[in-house]
């Protein structure tokens, strides 16, 4: 069981990093997964040189969705917009370090979907794999 709920996931879930919202966000986006009721919002503050200076996430949902959002905020902080856009699904799954079934994978990737929505300023920027 610990292979699914590794200590690092539980830790991010219990003690989320960068939780909250930003008043002066330059990029913001929110989405949910109605199937599970997971909801994630991401606020980013990007400075003049295109670097992500601050990031916050807010939301509710299962441990996987919330932990992955928390991890993702750590991944993007200090990165350039281009670097952040390059974060892939696999990067998230690697960070989580667990095998996920088809339902849970949506939980895991919701935060990335929201991040991309914020970065590209639109929804559906990353499509489901075909």
């Amino acid at each position, binding site marked *: *069981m610990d292979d*699914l*709920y590794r200590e690092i996931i*539980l830790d991010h879930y*219990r003690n989320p990093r960068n939780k909250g919202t930003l008043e002066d966000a330059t990029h913001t986006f929110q989405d949910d997964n*109605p*199937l*599970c*009721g*997971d909801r994630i919002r991401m606020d980013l503050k990007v400075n003049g040189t295109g670097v992500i200076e601050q990031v916050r996430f807010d939301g*509710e*949902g*299962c*441990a*996987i969705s919330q932990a992955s959002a928390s991890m993702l905020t750590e991944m993007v902080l200090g990165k350039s917009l281009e670097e952040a856009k390059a974060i892939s699904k696999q990067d998230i799954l690697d960070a989580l370090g667990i095998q996920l079934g088809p*339902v*849970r994978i949506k*939980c895991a990737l919701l935060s990335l979907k929201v991040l991309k929505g914020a970065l590209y300023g639109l929804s559906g920027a990353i499509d489901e794999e075909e």
Partner: protein
Amino acid sequence: MLDSDVVRQDFPILHQSINGKPLVYLDSAASSQKPLVVIQAMDEYYRAYHANVHRGIYQLSEKATEAYEAARRKVARFINARSWREIIFTRNATEAINLVAYAWGRHNITARDKILVTEMEHHANLVPWQQLAAETGAQLAYIPLDENFCCDMAAYEAMLDAHVKLVAITQMSNVLGTIVPVREFVARAHAVGALVLLDGAQGVPHLPTDVQSLDVDFLAASGHKMLGPTGSGFLYGKRHLLEEMPPFLTGGEMIRRVTWTGAEWNDLPHKFEAGTPAIAEAIGLGVAVDYLSRLGMENVRQHEVNLTRYALEQLSQVEGIRIYGPQQVERRGGAIAFNLDGLHAHDVAAILDREGIAIRAGHHCAMPLHQKLGVVATARASFYVYNEPAEIDRLVEALDMVRRLFER
């Protein structure tokens, strides 16, 4: 009495381990497992006598036709329909309800009319009526639940008037387990001239169901939730209603005659079965119905009452659990929705899976109900003929473990 030890022998799938632990299957409300006799009947069909039905003048086809139509008669007897002509095979309960929404609803509902549903309907018995209401301008209204998760009958009565044309209700909630007093619903609906469609997806597999005594006008059910194969379900309709309805799907089998300019429809039930039917599936469902009849639906019900009573007792010991649904076992079936305080149902289900325990988590296709309950998701354990008390013990132990894991 039903001996689940004996029954379990008939279900090959149950004899396996998941992550090294014996499978505990507690998701029969989503789809039941199948006894060997059902699996074998379909296997035998494909190996020995598969052919298209109804029009064949050779022995394979005649044998297939006989088996297909015999299955229909079994289903008719199982729910005590007056005639086999009142049974229409469908893919699932959803298709059965849509058939009524299209073939009856589109021709009988106008902007002045009202349709009533309960607050605990499955999307299958909700979205088709939302769509019908949107298309026709009719009003869709919700019969509220009381604080005991049962229908507020006084509110229902107050909602009934001559504009109500249809009352579409579940026989048993797939979330709360609530059993609906169908006869009362029907008597009052008929008193104002409304028809009643009963969503029996959860009720028919678990409760003795007699359409004549219930006097419902339509009954939809899922074969795959009552030991039958996937791709099987049926609609029961009172004959005179089905006779008056135009067809739904059109094509082969459902016609008597086709000319360049139009068509005449076949007799019931064929009028509503266009194209090559799901033959193996109907045959499998017939065998499932035989199996249930052999167990006896009263015994099935009693077995589940016992399990549900035990489960409610044991689950209520779990720290921080919240159970949604009536406490009295007489008023409910064996689908038990719950949440552990502060935990998402998905996490609960995922950890249970590691323990070999299969439950469902989510909105169970009843999003409005979950909104009413004030949660986005619940975990749900549901029982059937093959479940036994020891499995409930395993569930409870595992839930305790879930708690400990997240509290660490």
